[in-house]
């Protein structure tokens, strides 16, 4: 059977159906058994005619990153597509409108800008859309029709998929979309002489069980519901808002409560209040909101009250670039705030592990009575992947509070020193369990205590949880090392890990001896595993999406040896091509 691995970008202006065309294409291809990963980019402004790009990678094999360059660029709007042309491969294919509503001024047509080696297919998108439905709205469908004809995609299955997508709409809407698709398909079949190598013909993938087509935000919300979330408080902020919107609909059905607060300070305050009450609680935010929550993160750790914060990172300090992706909250999440303040931080590497990370976050927070931060980013929050339906968490992960036993309540010490650092926790309403919690340093009863010995003992207790949680932390993902040393070990974290993994696989094919390491658990970090991995690597490369190499510096402290940094702040997800290029140069 032949393989296919293709990146298709649809570029248009906001309101031209760019994003929905990408979504229809992804859903259809997923239904056909392909792996898909898609990532849309759009302006931060709601109004206006900003540039939208629907980027979709379709493959008959597992994929871990969205791919940097496109094999196919479909232009619904040449003004925008011209600026997208640099990400089209040198041998890429351009599909453009050959009879636009208004003729292009000289130099303003994307077809006139292609490089030698590229293939251009002009399709009268606008004309055919008018022919099909009387207006230009169906241009996106005409383009998909033409694409299907060119690449030998099954016409009938695709039209069935469009019908299903618009199934709930009026018949006239369904007809308009299907007819536009068919116009594009038939026109391309008759008029285009194919000169590219891409074809879906003969790619027959085995029947797959039903796949979920989701983004990270949707999975976080689903995981939280499955893991017994009972309270959510939040304040709208891109790119985390969708989590609140989903939960506002779903949480009441599960008997929980959602609160939209006046700011992020109140959101984390309410989460800690609910946590004090013994209910699982969470908030989601991005950099600016996370900064506001900092004081409360210290209280969660100090008073040992469970709290979960999802921080979907966006680019830059301050307001930064709200719709661009970056991994620059590492320091803030792992080390931010005041005092010696150990907290658990999880950074899922891909869409599907957003589910696992959220379940673990709620579990760890409750069991270890502390703060857990989950680091997503704009890419993970919004990129779409087709995945197997996640398995619901076992009871152990849904109910985890270690309650005091009868003998504990005789002389109840809420902050009793134990080997694991976990003290049995009474929830309000428990007779005999009355205690007092404070952000002040305190003794085992929770009463203020500023003695040297007391502060040392309690600080040690809070750090002891680190040892305990590491025992049940998810193991790092390490690619097969083979025998002997490798030349390059690529260590990555969060959403860069997929690209790193693909880069290492590609490097191995080129004869570079390489291996990859990534850990969802970033605080506390599985240091022993990291050191063991690095001992087997002649050189270390750490790619990440921030300017200064926040994680690389952190890892250097553990490894005590120099590492090679690779940093991007382009606002785009990590590309395996860039890592591979760096590996070749090393």
């Amino acid at each position, binding site marked *: 059977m032949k393989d296919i691995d293709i990146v298709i970008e649809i570029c248009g202006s906001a309101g031209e159906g760019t994003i929905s065309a990408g979504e229809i294409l992804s859903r259809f291809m997923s239904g056909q058994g392909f792996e898909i990963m898609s990532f849309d980019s759009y302006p931060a402004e709601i109004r206006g005619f900003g540039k939208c790009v629907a980027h979709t990678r379709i493959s008959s094999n597992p994929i871990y990153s969205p791919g940097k360059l496109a094999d196919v660029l479909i232009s619904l709007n040449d003004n925008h597509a011209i600026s997208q042309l640099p990400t089209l491969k040198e041998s890429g294919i351009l599909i453009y409108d050959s009879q636009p509503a208004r003729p292009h001024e000289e130099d303003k047509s994307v077809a006139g800008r292609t490089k030698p080696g590229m293939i251009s297919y002009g399709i009268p998108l606008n004309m055919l859309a008018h022919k099909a439905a009387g207006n230009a709205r169906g241009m996106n469908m005409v383009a998909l029709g033409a694409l299907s004809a060119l690449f030998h995609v099954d016409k009938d299955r695709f039209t069935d998929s469009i019908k299903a997508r618009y199934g709930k709409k009026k018949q006239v809407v369904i007809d308009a979309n299907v007819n536009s698709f068919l116009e594009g398909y038939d026109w391309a079949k008759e008029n285009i002489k194919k000169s590219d190598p891409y074809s879906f013909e003969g790619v027959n993938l085995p029947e797959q069980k039903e796949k979920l087509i989701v983004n990270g935000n949707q999975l976080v919300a689903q995981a939280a519901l499955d893991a017994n979330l009972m309270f959510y408080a939040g304040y709208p902020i891109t790119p985390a808002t969708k989590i609140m919107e989903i939960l506002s*609909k779903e949480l009441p059905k599960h008997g929980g*409560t959602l*609160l939209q607060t006046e700011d992020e300070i109140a959101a984390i*305050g309410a989460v800690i*209040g609910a946590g004090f009450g013994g209910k699982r*609680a969470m908030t989601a935010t991005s950099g600016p909101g996370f900064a506001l929550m900092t004081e409360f993160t210290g209280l969660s750790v100090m008073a040992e009250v469970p709290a979960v914060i999802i921080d979907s990172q966006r680019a830059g300090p301050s307001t930064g670039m709200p719709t661009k992706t970056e991994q620059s909250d590492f320091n803030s999440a792992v080390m931010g705030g005041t005092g010696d303040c150990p907290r658990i931080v999880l950074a899922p590497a891909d869409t599907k592990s957003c589910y696992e990370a959220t379940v673990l976050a709620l579990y760890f927070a409750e069991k270890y009575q502390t703060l857990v931060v989950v680091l997503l980013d704009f890419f993970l929050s919004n990129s779409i992947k087709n995945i197997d339906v996640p398995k619901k968490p076992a009871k152990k992960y849904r109910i985890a509070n270690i309650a005091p036993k009868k003998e504990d309540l005789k002389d109840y010490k809420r902050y009793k020193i134990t080997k694991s650092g976990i003290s049995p926790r009474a929830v309000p309403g428990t*007779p005999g369990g009355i205690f007092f919690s*404070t952000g002040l340093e305190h003794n085992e009863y929770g009463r203020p205590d500023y003695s040297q010995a007391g502060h040392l003992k309690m600080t040690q207790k809070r750090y002891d949880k680190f040892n305990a949680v590491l025992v049940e932390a998810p193991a790092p993902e390490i690619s097969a090392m083979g025998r002997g040393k490798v030349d390059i070990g690529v260590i990555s974290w969060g959403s860069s890990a997929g690209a790193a993994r693909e880069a290492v696989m590609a490097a191995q094919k080129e004869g570079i001896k390489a291996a990859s390491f990534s850990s969802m658990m970033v605080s506390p970090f599985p240091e022993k595993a990291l050191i063991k991995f690095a001992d087997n690597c002649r050189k270390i490369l750490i790619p990440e999406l921030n300017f200064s190499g926040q994680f690389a510096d952190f890892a250097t402290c553990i490894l005590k040896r120099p590492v090679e940094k690779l940093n991007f702040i382009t606002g785009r997800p990590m590309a395996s091509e860039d890592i591979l290029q760096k590996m070749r140069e090393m």
Partner: protein
Amino acid sequence: MEEIRSAYLDETLDTVRAADFLQYRSKDLPTWCPGCGYFGIVDALYRACRELDLKQENIVTVSGIGCSGRTPIFINTYGFHTLHGRSIPVATGLKLAREDLTVFAVAGDGDALGIGGGHLPHVARKNINITFLLFDNSIYGLTKGQSSSTTPHEMKTSSHPAGNPDTPLNPIRLALAYGASFVARGYAGDPQGLKDIIKNGILYQGFSFIQILTPCVTFDKENRTWKNLKENVVDLTPRMEEKNMETAMRLAQNEPHGVGIFFWDKKRPHYQEILRNLNKGN
């Protein structure tokens, strides 16, 4: 000083025992200054809990930072001493997650109107079912006498030795303007009267805002002293029968030392009831 009658002085112990509320007192001795008005406030709180026969384990007292922040240490309920200005959001989350509990949020004037002033409008307009006690001594006590949001204009303080340049806030007027449906003022020197107000606040199923006039005996020797309070505090109850907004606003404006329940909208549903009603249709 002979005017000061703290609940913990020996001569009052018998009355305290007779009142049968010692189970609401923790074993820790308060760290407040002798003569502090806060003794009167917790005394009223114990009595209100006793009269309503609330179980200690079903109460949580949430506080912020400052002298008032220590309150939960001295009350035998579940207690949470949180961050400066943040008792309201913490109490809000707690109450929404645990409707079965009685939740007190306490705050000082710096807590509630300064650093945490942004939370007050929202807890009021949402009508979260908690009882909020504003320990208003019009000064920052724990940091030793700086101007607060209710310090009188031109009063000399350690942060404004030449006189406070700011105009003080009027907490009752604010609470009314924010849409709080139970707005009252009590006086720390009258634990019986304050107890009745707190009791009504607990009974009210919604956000009850209770400002409590209390002196800082250590850092305010001229303005809100026991002497001044004793001379000026006036019971407005007879003039408050109507409980309409116009009367409440007028009294709030004209009677800075008037105590009683200014406004009480008994019919307004609290937040969880509103949520239940809204979610019924979905």
